[in-house]
């Protein structure tokens, strides 16, 4: 029989009613989550589970059994369920872990910028990485419980783990450390910092990171970037001075139905990847019985993608206003904004902006003197790419494991808390205020026949000016990569461009003249996805990139359905073997990968599994041909 994982730290696991109380710090952290809720009001508030887990995680650096037991008692939840949720997320630890954890991004873009050298530095200074959920070796209740990892003695003060993309691609190498994100890291700078931490100091002040390049080109731009960098992000005055809240006012003048019609007329399609018409989504939700919800999906986690982070950090009111208009149009009284846990700065900015919006009467009871009451609650993810899948996101907010749900029913009928819900991406919602302020017809003139408006494009990798660029749909990809982002530096050539992040497709150099639009990319067998372009120059070992992408999906699969849970592992194994073998792909192996890909696309529950073979398969077009 295995020893339970927490033994060795003076905590004996036992039945709930006999578990000792949590530490005062943990208790205080929990009290802040409960807020004004009395003990009997907490029971059944399962949606407070993730905030409560976050609170005790931050109070101690990991979720102790007494703290988890306190959460069980307060919320009336069984330990198995609480553990099931806690053990799902990479940023939550269910075993003792150093209080200061360095989550080093080693994903595709930071990898190009030398993340591996930093990983080696950390390995030399701190030993093996401590990986949470999906990474394996060191993982979880079982493997560690059997092994020596649950040792006696004090915990080290600093630890590290490898992290999937932190959404800082234009200014990596990045590392998430507590509530800070370190940027532009070099091995030397990191070593100095870690040594200071090991000595018990706070280390150096954060160097000012290189600014994010913002740029635009073409008709209608800058629209979404118009305020970014020009205003104090949390200044409502600045926001209003540059057209802010004109959209909401117009919406309230014309009424909910006309608001939806305006958005339908604009031709706006979702910017999260699925490209569903936003107005139609709202109309579908609005015709269902109340209560209804609106949700902003800010769980941006697609490798290579950072547009939502920039919007939230630099122009938060545009998203808040967009969500408010959505709430008004759909007839919701409450909106949720779910932001990934790896965006502490965006989270801080948002909370502050929401407070100002409330104080000024843009949120709360009877907004702007009308009978429309609406407020927004922010929820923080805890390290799980799959939460960007809308139904997984609902489950995460509700305090369940973030397993995606089978569809139908669709969120517009059965969404958050099983109620009709309109869920939109950050960028989509940021498009809404100008559409209302200037009219759907005006917006519909921008872009192409089927892709209306402007698009934010995250360009990273081997370009002179990695950054966030705005163009009207229809502009050639080459214009974005070369004119705006400066092309590949040093006179080298493009080998491939990954379009749409890890779930996307590798484009060949000759395909860069393709207009950036949903329909043109679709015709190529690619997809716009999240709007990320990662550029790889001719010297890049693409097999390493493809293997990292395969590992990403293996690590991020929720594990619910077989094609994805096991398929992502099998795909990784084959890709790793191909890389080791020098990249020769024999027809038999190609067939194996293609069969697996078809099954993952056909039979996985959600987009994660369905899109996981994309990059791998498309890389075979480039790599498979080589001698």
């Amino acid at each position: 029989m295995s020893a339970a994982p927490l033994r060795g730290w003076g905590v004996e696991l036992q039945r709930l009613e006999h578990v000792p109380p949590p530490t005062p710090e943990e208790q205080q952290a929990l009290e802040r989550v409960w807020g004004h809720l009395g003990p009997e009001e907490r029971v059944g508030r399962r949606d407070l589970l993730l905030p409560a887990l976050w609170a005790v995680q931050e109070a101690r650096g990991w979720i102790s059994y007494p703290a988890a037991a306190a959460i069980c008692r307060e919320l009336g939840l069984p330990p198995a369920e609480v553990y099931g949720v806690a053990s799902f997320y990479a940023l939550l630890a269910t075993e003792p872990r150093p209080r200061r954890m360095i989550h080093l991004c080693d994903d595709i873009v930071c990898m190009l910028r030398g993340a591996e050298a930093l990983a080696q530095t950390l390995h030399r200074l701190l030993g093996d990485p401590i990986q949470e959920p999906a990474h394996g070796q060191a993982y979880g209740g079982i493997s560690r419980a059997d092994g020596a990892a649950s040792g006696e003695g004090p915990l080290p003060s600093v630890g590290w783990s490898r992290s999937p993309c932190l959404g800082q691609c234009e200014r990596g190498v990045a590392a998430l450390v507590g509530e800070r994100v370190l940027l532009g890291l070099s091995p030397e700078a990191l070593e100095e910092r870690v040594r200071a931490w090991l000595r018990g100091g706070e280390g150096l002040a954060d160097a000012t990171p290189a600014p994010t390049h913002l740029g635009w080109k073409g008709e209608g731009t800058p629209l979404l970037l118009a305020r970014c960098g020009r205003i104090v992000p949390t200044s409502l005055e600045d926001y209003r001075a540059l057209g802010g809240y004109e959209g909401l006012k117009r919406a309230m003048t014309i009424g909910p139905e006309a608001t939806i019609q305006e958005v339908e007329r604009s031709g706006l399609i979702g910017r999260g990847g699925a490209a569903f018409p936003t107005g139609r989504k709202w109309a579908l939700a609005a015709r269902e019985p109340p209560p209804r919800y609106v949700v902003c999906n800010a769980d941006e986690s697609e490798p290579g993608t950072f547009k939502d982070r920039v919007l939230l950090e630099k122009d938060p009111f545009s998203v808040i206003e967009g969500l408010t208009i959505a709430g008004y149009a759909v007839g919701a009284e409450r909106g949720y904004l779910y932001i990934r846990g790896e965006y502490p700065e965006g989270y801080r900015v948002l909370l502050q902006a929401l407070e100002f919006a409330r104080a000024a009467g843009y949120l709360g009871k009877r907004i702007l003197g009308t009978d429309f009451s609406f407020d927004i609650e922010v929820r923080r993810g805890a390290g799980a790419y799959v939460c960007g899948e809308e139904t997984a996101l609902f489950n995460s907010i509700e305090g369940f494991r973030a397993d995606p749900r089978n569809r139908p029913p669709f969120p517009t009928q059965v969404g958050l808390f099983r109620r009709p819900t309109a869920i939109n991406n950050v960028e989509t919602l940021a498009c809404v205020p100008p559409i209302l302020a200037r009219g759907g017809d005006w917006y519909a003139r921008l872009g192409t026949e089927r892709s209306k408006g402007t698009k934010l494009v995250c360009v990273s990798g081997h370009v002179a000016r990695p950054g966030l660029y705005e163009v009207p749909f229809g502009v050639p990809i080459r214009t974005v990569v070369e004119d705006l982002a400066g092309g590949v530096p040093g006179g080298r050539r493009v080998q491939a461009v990954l379009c749409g992040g890890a779930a996307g497709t590798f484009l060949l150099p000759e395909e860069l003249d393709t207009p950036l639009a949903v329909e043109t990319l679709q015709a190529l067998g690619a997809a716009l996805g999240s709007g990320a372009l990662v550029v790889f120059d001719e010297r890049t070992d693409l097999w390493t990139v493809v293997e990292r992408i395969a590992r990403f999906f293996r690590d991020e699969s929720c594990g619910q359905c077989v094609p994805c849970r096991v398929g992502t592992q099998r795909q990784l194994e084959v890709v790793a073997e191909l890389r080791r073998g020098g990249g020769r792909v024999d027809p038999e192996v190609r067939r194996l990968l293609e069969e697996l890909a078809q099954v993952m696309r056909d039979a996985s529950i959600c987009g994660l599994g369905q899109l996981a073979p994309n990059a791998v398969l498309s890389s075979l077009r480039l790599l498979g041909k080589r001698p």
Partner: protein
Amino acid sequence: MTRKLQVPLVTAEVDGQRVQVPEASTLLEAIRAAGKDVPTLCYHPVLEPIGACRICVVEVEGSRTLVPACIRRVEAGMRVRTDTPRVQLSRRMVVELLQGSVDTSLAPDVRRYAAEYGARPERWEPFAQEGPRAKHAPKVDNDLYVRDLDRCILCYRCVRACGEEVQNSFAIAVAGRGLAARIDPGFDLPLPDSACVFCGNCVAVCPTEALVPKTQFEMRRAGTWEEGRQQVVTTICPYCGVGCKLNLHVQDNRIVKVTAPLEDPITRGFLCVKGRFGWTYVHAGTAADPGGGAEPSTPPGNL
């Protein structure tokens, strides 16, 4: 029956054959009404479908992806194909993936489908690496049943049976993520320290012997478990007034396991700890117990 007749019917087409089923029926129900069938693993007739294993996928005209028959509702005019090459490929792959990731040697359904669809898990072997799924020894932490997680295909049947659908104990749930996901009582607690009431209903619905009565587990180890030589004797549980129907599995004139027939409207296959495990007294004072030297099965002290 009269209430059933009032449910509006919808018409769909299964492999070219028209079929009428009550509104809100699942595709699986429609397929079976048409006299066809599809393989299932996570599906269990008395539990709510969850569509997790994906072996029941079928083609639905107009759908971009395949569709899980167990959970998808029939819509009027739906055209369903249950056995196309595309469907067969997915089923074969699901079996291959399961066989390559866990021990399915005691999972009769998986083995049957493997043969039926021509699964060749060995073609993945040249690439196999150590995944995040650690190998575990069977967990023997109580006298009534054993958890052998290396056999678990994560069908969630046990979790559903333990939770609100049957037992309302909520003693187990899925923990971890991805390949490292596994069934756990929370913090890897031993079962006697968990909320488990040892009803064994999780064991009853497990299709792979990942959850198995301890007697059966030990007899398998000793090489004495022989289903072919077992008789099933139906009787009524002697403990309380409910009168649950029991199936006594008898080998060499000794009870080796107790189950409940699924079709019994009182139990629907589910029992309490006494009915399922409280039978050793029958052999009290007789020769050695069937486990070949194991201690008699008694409920843990906290009951």
